[in-house]
């Protein structure tokens, strides 16, 4: 049996120790990198951490998601509109928000799905630059033109494709980033909400005084939604559609219906 010298044994232990240290170092390095990549824009700013190009690209995509979510909320509150339609009620205490009249004494103003898609796209194109401006880090400079967004509302989801070629300058290095190559898909019941809203509105053509409440209940239930008719004014009802399955908070979509009220009118 060959005997290993004491010197050789020490060498082996030293090599093993070096390997262990190197491994631990590498692990900590990648762990930190991954951790940084998971940080959002605000955390980078708050911690004073310098982001990577990859981080910046993530921030840009995050901006699209953030803007889309706020747009969804706004067009929900504003009944599918971003821009004021012909007839609306001003929510003066809510930053200039409004609620559209879908039915106003015989006048119909409910938006089509295409209109809502367009309105949401317009909002994103208007609001996205405000988010991109917040990607403000030393040594990084973003340049981009006006974006062009296309929204597609489908069963259970919406897809946002924003055409926006960005240039990211990092000291002497320039990187191109095309946002259109990173379309955003979000879980959303907006398609079903619009279906129910359309049912409520179009049912006025059959009877503008009464609604088939069990038809509406059944439809709303099948769409996994909720519907509330709330007294808004003596002649106006606030219709609120709520979904509580795709987002942390319930999603509200609302609009108004205004009616002719005749005194002493016998409803029968």
């Amino acid at each position, binding site marked *: 049996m060959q005997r290993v010298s004491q010197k050789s044994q020490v060498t082996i232990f030293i090599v093993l120790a070096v390997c262990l240290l190197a491994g631990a170092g590498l692990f900590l390095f990648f762990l930190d990198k991954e951790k940084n990549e998971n940080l959002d824009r605000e955390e980078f700013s708050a911690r004073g951490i310098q982001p990577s190009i990859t981080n910046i690209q993530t921030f840009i995509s995050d901006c699209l998601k953030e803007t889309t979510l706020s747009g969804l909320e706004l067009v929900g*509150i504003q009944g599918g509109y971003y821009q004021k339609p012909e007839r609306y*009620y001003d*929510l*003066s*205490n*809510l*930053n200039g*928000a409004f*609620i559209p009249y879908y039915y106003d004494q015989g006048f119909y103003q409910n938006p089509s799905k295409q209109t809502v898609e367009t309105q949401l796209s317009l909002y994103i194109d208007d609001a996205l630059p405000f988010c991109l401006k917040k990607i403000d880090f030393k040594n990084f400079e973003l340049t981009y033109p006006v974006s062009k967004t296309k929204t597609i509302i489908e069963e259970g989801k919406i897809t946002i494709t924003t055409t926006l070629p960005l240039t990211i300058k990092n000291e002497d290095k320039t990187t191109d980033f095309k946002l259109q190559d990173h379309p955003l898909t979000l879980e959303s019941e907006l398609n079903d909400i619009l279906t129910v809203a359309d049912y409520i509105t179009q049912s006025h053509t059959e*009877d*503008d*005084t*009464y*609604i*088939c*409440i*069990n*038809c*509406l*209940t*059944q439809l*709303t*239930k099948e769409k996994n*939604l*909720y*519907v*509330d*008719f*709330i*007294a*808004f*004014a*003596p*002649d*106006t*009802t*606030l219709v*609120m559609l*709520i979904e*509580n399955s795709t987002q*942390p*908070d*319930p999603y*509200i979509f*609302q609009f108004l*219906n205004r*009616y002719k*009220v*005749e*005194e*002493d*009118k*016998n*409803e*029968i």
Partner: protein
Amino acid sequence: MKYKIIFLISMLLFALALIIAQGCTGDSCTNTFQNFGGFGQGVLFDNQRNQLTNQPTNQEGQPNSPATPDQILQDFDAFTNQFQDSANKFQQKEVDSQRMQQQFGTQVEGDPSKGQWSADGQQFNYNGVEFDEQSKCQGGSCPQTQFNPDGSVDFQGQEGGNMNLKSDTGQTAFKPETGGAGSYGGDGGTGSAPAGGGTTASANPGQAAAQGANQQMQEVSQAMGIVQQFLGLFQGFADKLAKTSDEGTAKITTPNQYGGLSASIDDTTLAYMNSQNQVELFAKAQAKTGEVNTKTTAKEITAKNVDLTVPEQAHLTIPEQETTIRLNGIKGNDPNFREATNTAAINSITGQAIINGEEVDLSQYIQFQNHDLAIGGKELTVYTLKTFNNVDAAGQDINVISGDVAIKFQGQKILYPRLVKNAPYGIKKITNQLDKENQYQLQHFTNKDSLLTDYQGIASVGDIFSTHPKIPGLVIAKIRNDMWKTN
């Protein structure tokens, strides 16, 4: 003997002269009295003024004597122009009881002299209560008729089913007004949910209607009071119908196919009372002749073309289709279903699918059972005057109305007002028998208009709301608050 013969010949000649004077030709006479031999007791002679009269005493208070034939002949023009009617009525009084027995098969008691025979002698009308050939009773179960001093008529059948008819100035059986805001109560801004999510200034468009309902209840009470005034006269009758208006006519036949009484009514109102002399309902004729039939076999009536008021329960509009109304309801609200001051809780239930083509009983019926109401058929309207625990309906053009809120049943559909309105009487569970999956509760409030919710919490219509938990500028239905609390 000789004098007797001379007297008889004289009377015959007088009678012949009288008939000729009144224009009788053949079998037809222009007046209707039957036995003029007794007219002298209907026409009197005032010896002080030496003239015919129908007053029992003269100016000095001395009694006038029955006019003799000679006295009548002395002033025959006055007799024909002024006193013939009195004579006729007296004649009728004498012969009505016997004649009615013969002609209509009814045993008569009391004084029917306020009645009038038709010109052809085929009908007898007593304050709007008509007797004619159709009223004729045959067989052994003929009713007994009593003409009362107050102008009312009692009928009592031999096999149950009793009826009282009375002329009076009362009125009832009205349709509650369901006007819009301010129809009674003036301006009262409707409860609204302005975007600010402020508190509701309560507003009550249906307050007016509630006042209207109160007014109507008062009228019901008045009518009931009128009925009660004469109820005391007829204690002991099992069931009664009372005519509560001077106007119009009511024709009674008995027994009907159910062993009870049948009333055919035109432009008038009847009150139907139970054996405890409690008014079970009022029946008012619509434009067409209405019909009400009582039953001795069940606490039911059948009716058509009438508006019915079941005191403290509901007002019903019954169409041309004969409708069965069961009167087993309990007056007043169920103490377990109170007015709310906030929002009602929603209990989930396991539902079934919409029933397509399900066979349901679409016969015409309205059933009051304790605090429940079941309606079937078509063109039926029920105005609730109390809360109900269960309202089940199946059919077409069925309306259930609480204050300003009208709930319509059209086949499988339940139609509900798009505007939030006041409902003074709630309904714990509303079911369309053709869609048992979706059931609703209509909650009434002390300070709000109403809240309709389905039992699965999917839909609501009401003025019960609160501010959005996270966006203060918005409002949400209050029943949705828990959605945010759990997230």
